[in-house]
C-alpha cells in the first residue's frame, strides 16, 4: 500500500481516539444507569430526566464511537500486520486513564501505582511497535 500512506496513519489515529471515547462513554452510561437504579424501580417516564436519560445517551454515544473505531480498525488491518498494529491500540489506555480521572462525570481517583502501571504499559507499546519497522503486510 504505497499509494496513500497517510490513510493508514489516519485510520490508526481514529481507531485509538474513538476506542478511548467509546470506553469513557460506556462507563459514563453504566454509571448513570447505576444512579437511576439506586432510586428504586425504573419507570419509562424517567427516560426524560437526567440519570436514565444520560445513561441512554452516553451508552449509545459510546457504542457508536466503538463501532466507528472498529471500521477504522479494519482499514488498519488491511494495511499493517496485526503484531505491529495491535500494541499501538494500547495508546488508548492512556487516553482512557486521563479521561477517567480528569472528566468530572467520572472523577475516578488516580493512584501512583495505577499511574506507574499505565506508564509501564506505554513503554511496552513503544518497545513493541515503534521499533523494528512499520511492517505492512
Amino acid at each position: 500500500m504505497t499509494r496513500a500512506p497517510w490513510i493508514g496513519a489516519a485510520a490508526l489515529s481514529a481507531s485509538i481516539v474513538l476506542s478511548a471515547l467509546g470506553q469513557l462513554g460506556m462507563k459514563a452510561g453504566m454509571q448513570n444507569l447505576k444512579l437511576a437504579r439506586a432510586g428504586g424501580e425504573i419507570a419509562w417516564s424517567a427516560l426524560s430526566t437526567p440519570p436514565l436519560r444520560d445513561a441512554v445517551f452516553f451508552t449509545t454515544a459510546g457504542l457508536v464511537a466503538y463501532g466507528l473505531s472498529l471500521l477504522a480498525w479494519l482499514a488498519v488491518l488491511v494495511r499493517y500486520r496485526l503484531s505491529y498494529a495491535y500494541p499501538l491500540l494500547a495508546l488508548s489506555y492512556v487516553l482512557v486513564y486521563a479521561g477517567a480521572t480528569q472528566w468530572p462525570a467520572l472523577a475516578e481517583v488516580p493512584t501512583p501505582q495505577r499511574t506507574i502501571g499505565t506508564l509501564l504499559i506505554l513503554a511496552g507499546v513503544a518497545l513493541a511497535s515503534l521499533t523494528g519497522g512499520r511492517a505492512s503486510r
Partner: protein
Amino acid sequence: MSNLLLLLAVVLLSTSQVLQKVGAARRLAGKQKPSEWIAALFSPELLTAIVCIVAGTALWLAVLYRMDVSRAFPFLSLTTVLVMAASRFLLGEPVSWHRWAGVLLIAGGIALVAST
C-alpha cells in the same frame, strides 16, 4: 465473578482480532467501494469476528457496571499477549524480540494496575 467475566471477554476479543485480520486480508484488501466493504462484512470470517466482539463487548459492559474503568481497562491489554502469540503462531507473522519484550512490559503494567 467480575474477574471471570473479564477473562472471558478477553478471550472473545482476542479471537475477534485474529478473525478480523484474516477477514481484512482475504476480503478487504484492494476493495475501495462501500458496497464491497458491506458485502465483506458478511463474509464468514468477519461475521464471526463481529459476533465475538459483540459478545465480548456485552460482557465488558457488565464488568464496567461494577468496576472502575481505569482499573478494568488495562486488563484488556492481556489481549495484547494473546494477540501477539496468535499473530506469531496462527498467522505466521515474524515477531522480533523487542516486540515480545514490549508485550512483557505491558503485562507488567497490567499486573501493577490490577493489584491496586
